[in-house]
């Protein structure tokens, strides 16, 4: 949506090169590389413990890889200090798996808090903009004054998304956006993710297990297995892959069901 400067328009938004991560002796990633293009919905998948959340945490500067390079908006983030990272952090929003809403604040205050911290908008506009973000994520208007503990799981995720959108980020990270949701709420999230990309022109990177979400929303998918990327491509491409790990993932009983669903929709 925003007019990007010419240099940024064509360049990739996230560029991960040869990243390796170890916890003690345990190898989490070995030589992982991937790139996310502007305006793309990119999904990172893999079994439990495949290190996809760790990779996400490394991209958003919550953790450091052992070696390798990660560039976001063309800037190297590995080893970046908190002060230098601030301008970058204002350009992306993160939705955490369990919401991570501030429990002492209402939903509207959770969004407003980010605006208060990073902008000098007048109080009235802050409240209105917070209401806009809450509405954009599909929450009813009466959700704003509620506390996170009064919301259902799906509403909490949407509220967390509203907070991630507070500063109109160009890049959105979603950690397990549909985990723990009923199928109806989950398919609501599918539409929301696509709607946000189309409406706000966002680049979205998500970590997920949800095959339905991938079929419906993701432009490209990277499969992590055994510490490395075993396949990258659109869902259709991946479903024809010969790699045993990818096949295991997409041709298990659930994978097949999601595949059939996707075919029916077409």
């Amino acid at each position: 949506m925003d007019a990007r400067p010419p240099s940024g328009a064509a360049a990739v938004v996230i560029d991960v090169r040869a990243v390796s991560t170890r916890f003690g002796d345990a190898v989490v990633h070995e030589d992982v590389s991937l790139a996310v293009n502007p305006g793309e919905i990119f999904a990172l998948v893999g079994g439990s413990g495949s290190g996809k959340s760790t990779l996400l945490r490394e991209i958003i500067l919550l953790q450091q890889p052992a070696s390798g390079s990660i560039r976001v908006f063309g800037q190297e983030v590995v080893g970046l200090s908190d002060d230098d990272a601030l301008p970058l952090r204002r350009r992306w929003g993160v939705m955490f798996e369990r919401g991570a809403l501030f429990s002492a604040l209402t939903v509207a205050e959770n969004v407003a808090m980010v605006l208060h911290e990073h902008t000098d908008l007048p109080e009235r506009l802050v409240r209105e903009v917070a209401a806009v973000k809450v509405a954009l994520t599909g929450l009813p208007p009466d959700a704003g004054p509620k506390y996170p503990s009064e919301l259902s799981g799906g509403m909490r995720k949407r509220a967390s998304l509203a907070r991630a959108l507070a500063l109109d980020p160009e890049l959105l990270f979603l950690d397990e956006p549909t985990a723990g949701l009923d199928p109806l709420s989950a398919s609501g999230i599918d539409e929301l993710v696509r709607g946000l990309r189309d409406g706000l022109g966002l680049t979205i990177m998500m970590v997920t297990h949800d095959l339905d979400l991938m079929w419906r929303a993701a432009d490209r998918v990277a499969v992590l297995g055994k510490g490395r990327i075993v396949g990258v491509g659109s869902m259709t491409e991946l479903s024809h892959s010969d790699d045993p790990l990818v096949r295991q993932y997409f041709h298990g009983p659930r994978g097949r069901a999601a595949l059939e669903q996707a075919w029916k929709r077409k």
Partner: protein
Amino acid sequence: MTSEATVPPAVVTSSEATDARDVRCAGAWTVRTIADVEPHLARVPWPAAGEVAIDASGVSLLDTTGAWLLHRTVRELAARGCTAHIVGLRPEFASLLALIASREIPLASPAPPAPGRLERLGRHAWAVAAGSAGYLAFVGESAIALLRAVRHPRRLRWLPILHNVQTAGLEALPITGLLSFLMGIVIAYQGADQLQRFGANIFVVDLVALAMLRELSPLLTAIIIAGRSGSAYTAQIGTMKVTEEIDALRTIGVGAQELLVLPKVVALIIVMPLLTVYTDVTGVLGGMVMARSKLDVSFDVFVDRLDEAIQVSSYWTGLAKAPVFAMIIALVGCYRGFQVTGSAESVGEQTTMSVVQSIFLVIVTDAIFSIVFLWLDL
């Protein structure tokens, strides 16, 4: 840094001095620049009625915040009878504006009216009454659980009890010992001047021993344990409440009282008298050190005098308070933990309340003990 830096700042201009029918918007309308735009918009001399054209062809950047401001302006104009048309907006910005316009957004969130003074007083009184009733109920439940445990001693969980004895008792030895030692020194030091004036140096033994044994040592121990263990109990149970572990216990069919409260109460009742005896000793030791250096009362003389200065009843009156204080601290700490509601802030609130209330109750109980002992002539 960001792309906005290269973009001209947002501006709003109108050709007419009054009754602006033709308004031009330009520049970046984003969350970072919009604060400057709002006063411009407010200064535009909008007409009272009729048609207004807002030329937005100069808008080079628009995000949801900017789109909202545009939308709000149109909405406010419509409310006063003007029809505003936005023209020249780039197609991608127009679709964003349409997205914002399609959502139902309350113009100003209705703030609930602040309650009056009388209402606040009433609510507060009610909260205090409900809190007291809840506390009483909690004490009752704990008593029932304790009775049940006494009837079936094998159901008492000894492992958690021993664990609590270690954390609340054994690990508190250095700090309680050090503080009561210092307290003994301070009392002897304070008394030294007065006693020396009358040549009554030897009575420093009476001063230190009576003060420590009867009052200070049980009180000091209780206050340290309230700050050390009472707060930990609240935080532990409170966090378990937030993470629904308490509910999980209930569904498994294990009473939270039995698993979490009783071991703590029993452990503190075991530990507090022992700690009190220990701080009796370290406190008197502190007094002894001070008496020798400041009043020339040697250790031998001090110990000889100790025999005459204190009766066994002084020792027992101090010691008798310890288990009562232990119960107060453990029960208040656990009760406050169960009062935690969903948020992290609530854990902090209840922990503060736990320490304040248990120290308050300990001191009040201590005063009651003093009065009772006076009646009983102990």
